[in-house]
């Protein structure tokens, strides 16, 4: 399949970019780590998140923030490729046109999951522990990968439409804030009515709750399916819009 071979070659190219500026992986992990330190060591004492270590409660939401900040680099890199003429160069060559976007998406997946691993390592150093088995960990990895894929396709849209590099990555700010109005940091039970309603019906709560349940070996229940449903829905819509924008922009 020529499309797969083209995607492989172009993915190799952008992975090389990452390998040559590993600081993006560190920068991606930096903010979530800062939040984690802040919440665990400064605010954590005042937060009642039930029994158990607060870092165990917190980690799923921190991982969502990591992914949101990771995919914003994808928008940035795609924007630079467009501006520098590389996308045009590839599009004037006899290669599968979709491979240009897929290469960025796969690179984002790899880079973001490395950042996630860095954050998990820091959490372990801060006392995070989980007795979850390999199956639960695989399920967690699967949810995180699916979420990264969905948010990456979402990031492709500003990457294609932005008029400045800052504009390309700014879309991630609301995504980074979303976990704060969810069950990621504090249980929703204590929130006032409308906020609580929003928190309980937005994707981060379902995703964070599902991951937390898997890691603390509690029954996952419906959260898992709600979380997966959100991821698949975001992925579907974002993919559709991104590819439509790509086709129209290039017509």
């Amino acid at each position, binding site marked *: 399949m020529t499309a797969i*071979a*083209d995607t492989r*070659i*172009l993915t190799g*190219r952008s992975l*090389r*970019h990452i390998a*040559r*500026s590993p600081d993006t992986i560190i920068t991606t992990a930096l903010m979530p780590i800062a939040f984690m330190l802040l919440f665990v060591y400064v605010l954590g004492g005042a937060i009642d998140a039930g029994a158990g270590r607060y870092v165990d409660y917190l980690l799923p939401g921190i991982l969502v923030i990591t992914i949101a900040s990771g995919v914003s680099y994808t928008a940035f890199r795609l924007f630079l490729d467009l501006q*520098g*003429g*590389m996308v*045009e*160069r*590839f*599009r*004037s*060559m*006899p*290669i599968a046109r979709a491979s240009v976007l897929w290469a960025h998406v796969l690179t984002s997946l790899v880079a973001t999951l490395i950042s996630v691993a860095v954050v998990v390592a820091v959490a372990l150093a801060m006392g995070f522990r989980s007795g979850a088995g390999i199956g639960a960990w695989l399920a967690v990895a699967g949810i995180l990968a699916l979420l990264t894929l969905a948010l990456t396709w979402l990031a492709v849209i500003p990457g294609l439409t932005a008029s400045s590099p800052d504009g390309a990555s700014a879309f991630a700010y609301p995504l980074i804030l979303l976990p704060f109005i969810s069950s990621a940091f504090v249980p929703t039970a204590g929130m006032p009515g409308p906020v609580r309603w929003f928190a309980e019906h937005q994707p981060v709560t379902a995703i964070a709750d599902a991951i937390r349940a898997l890691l603390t070996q509690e029954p996952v229940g419906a959260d898992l399916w709600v979380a997966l449903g959100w991821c698949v829905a975001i992925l579907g819509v974002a993919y559709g819009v991104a590819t439509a924008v790509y086709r129209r922009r*290039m*017509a």
Partner: protein
Amino acid sequence: MTAAAIEVRGLEKSYGELAVLRGVDLEVPRGRIVALLGANGAGKTTLVRVLATLLRADAGAASVAGHDVATAAPDVREALSLTGQFAAVDEILTGRENLVMVARLRRLPDAGATADALLARLGLAEAAHRRVGTWSGGMRRRLDIAMSLVGEPEVIVLDEPTTGLDPQARLEVWAAVRELADAGTTVLLTTQHLEEAERLADRIAILHEGRILVDGTLAELKALLPPATVEYVEKQPTLEEVFLAVVGGGERS
């Protein structure tokens, strides 16, 4: 298959209200070098982008190596290679990595050897293993051209290939273009340098106000002017000749 490598008939393209191409007719014979002359904003880049399937025309038709740009875009991309007006090179990769990537995308059996040959041909071998981000503008331009030569496409389109190059680099690019034509490649290049068109092209087409005003050999174009009157003047060296003499370059073809 038609005889011409590029055939353009009644091509029109507007950006909103601005009618840039208003019925362009152009024919580029196989194996020839044709220069497309035009002032800033004449629409040279627009025409070239239509030929490279990057832009859709509003009306008219264009074909490359017998393939229609609108209905057989993949075949056109196979036959034609574009060097755009602004260098499109990957600055984080080295020069060689850039060329190897393009060669692999074109499925050449020995991408590394192709890359090395092109680096040598455009005088870039020394810098091959440095990141392109550290290269000068002229070197990037030559790499950009080299990337279009990968895989020896039938038709090469160069949009202002020598803008921003020093005289010596310009001569190297000219030599590379001539070599291409000698090997049977068709070349369409846009330029603002009349001298470049004069020295390099078999035919010259002038794009003005959305149409091709004239199209012919240099002799045919000169014949359009009133016959020259003979005057005796002392021949001054051109600035270019002076520059080349001082820096010790000179034509290396």
